[in-house]
């Protein structure tokens, strides 16, 4: 996967300074509303607010296109599905293919929705340090009684940070193992099944070794999976309360007008 996909871009902007919890709540509310939107004007409104927020975030546009790119195939697929499979007034016929006007409209709306979701998500990750996302989630789920299933909110936060840290490392290992296999004469194109099995076995062994070393290093630095503090203190400022207030107003108005 592309390294720039949903990556953090350090900048000093009002969006970067917001508490991760505020941004998480905003992202959730926006996502729900985007998924409910059925009109072009509604989607246009969200697109406009995205452009505005992206401008304030000082993150350059390239970052967002990097987040859209890996999903393009998916978007095209969704669009074509709707275009051809929706009942309605037919645009033209070529053999069994009968795209409809209704399909064109729903397809565009659904695809735009997914694009907006990805864009807002990448705006969130671009303006929030990965660990801050983890800490934010940890604080939001701290009251959930997870003890009963044997883990703590701290475990979950640590797991999230570690995934962010180690998924690229494991992918890199996989790539190196593949190169090693190719250099020893394994033809990947002609024997896909074999190439998968010869790559996966060493990969699992390598991953287990990494996990083992990591666990020992964490234990020796006093990791207990219980209460721990953080280098970054989460603090809700005036801006945060303002944003949350604004969101509440919008939600309230929405239900009132409906």
């Amino acid at each position, binding site marked *: 996967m592309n390294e720039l996909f949903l990556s953090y871009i350090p900048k000093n902007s009002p969006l970067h300074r917001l508490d991760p919890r505020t941004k998480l709540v905003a992202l959730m509310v926006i996502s729900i509303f985007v998924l409910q939107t059925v009109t072009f004007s509604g989607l246009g409104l969200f697109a406009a607010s995205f452009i505005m927020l992206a401008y304030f975030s000082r993150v350059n546009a390239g970052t967002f296109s990097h987040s859209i790119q890996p999903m393009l195939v998916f978007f095209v697929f969704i669009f074509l599905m709707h275009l051809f499979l929706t009942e309605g007034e037919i645009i033209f016929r070529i053999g069994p293919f009968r795209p409809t006007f209704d399909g064109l409209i729903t397809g565009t709306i659904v695809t735009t929705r997914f694009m907006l979701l990805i864009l807002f998500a990448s705006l969130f990750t671009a303006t929030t340090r990965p660990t801050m996302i983890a800490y934010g989630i940890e604080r939001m789920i701290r009251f959930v009684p997870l003890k009963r299933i044997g883990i703590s909110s701290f475990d979950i936060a640590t797991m999230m940070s570690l995934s962010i840290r180690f998924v690229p490392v494991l992918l890199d290992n996989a790539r190196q193992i593949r190169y090693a296999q190719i250099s020893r004469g394994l033809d990947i194109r002609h024997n896909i099944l074999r190439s998968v099995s010869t790559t996966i076995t060493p990969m699992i062994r390598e991953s287990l070794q990494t996990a083992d070393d990591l666990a020992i290093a964490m234990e020796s630095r*006093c990791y207990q999976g219980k209460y721990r503090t953080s280098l970054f203190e989460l603090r809700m400022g005036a801006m945060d309360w303002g944003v949350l207030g604004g969101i509440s107003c919008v939600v309230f108005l929405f239900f009132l007008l409906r």
Partner: protein
Amino acid sequence: MRFDHNIMIHINNLSYRYPDGTLTLEGVDISIDRGEFVAIMGPNGCGKTTLVRHLNALLMPTAGSVSVFGMDTKDMSKVWNIRQTVGMVFQNPQTQFVGTTLEEDVAFGPENLGLPQNEIRKRVDRALLEVRLMEYKTHAPKTLSGGQMQRAAIAGVLAMEPECIVFDEVTSMLDPESRQMILDTIQQLHQSGKTIIYVTQRIEEILPLADRIVSMQDGRIEFMGTPHEYLASVGSHVPAITSLMRKLKEKGFDVRDDVFAVDDAFLEIIKACRMVEKENIDDE
């Protein structure tokens, strides 16, 4: 239990058997003083890693005991105290780096200790200054070199303010320049009063630094003594400089054969040459 405050670590008749049955350590006795620099050497698989993992309760003795400042490592209530007192730096820089940035990684230990935020900040900054990585503090691991990551690991341990630091072959994956930088940092830490336990395969890198050398073989201690005693008693596995001096002595030159530093060897050789010159003049 009474204990001597000058004894950092006491290992008494330690044996260890891995769950799969391999007996890895057998009757190991070592006592390490506070502020001492002890080097542990030996071939692959002789049990060095197994031994040092007992020092902060990552492994528990099968027989015998290990105590840190009088705290028995088998005492479960002391585990966190022991791990705070004895920090450990491992061989692989990648797998001990747990943060998504350098400063987050250094903060990992203090965060686990539950320290308040401003105290964590203070310790992180102090540790980063000490290993000279301050300007990299917001860097992601993929932008750091192996040597920088290994210094980050040292900073991560320093931020827990341990009395003693164990280094398990920390330079084996590094280039010569990074290796020297790590060694300089370790020497500084030793001079500032920390107890150092340094596991290595390279005799030449620790002879000038260590107060005591422990050489292991098949899970037992084969030799223990000062660097000079080591050179005097051990025939093989000595630095190139020492081999050279031994050869010179064999040929009849009047040089000491227990030196390992280039400067010392140089002085010895110069002295021997002058002597030869003088003898020649006297003959004429």
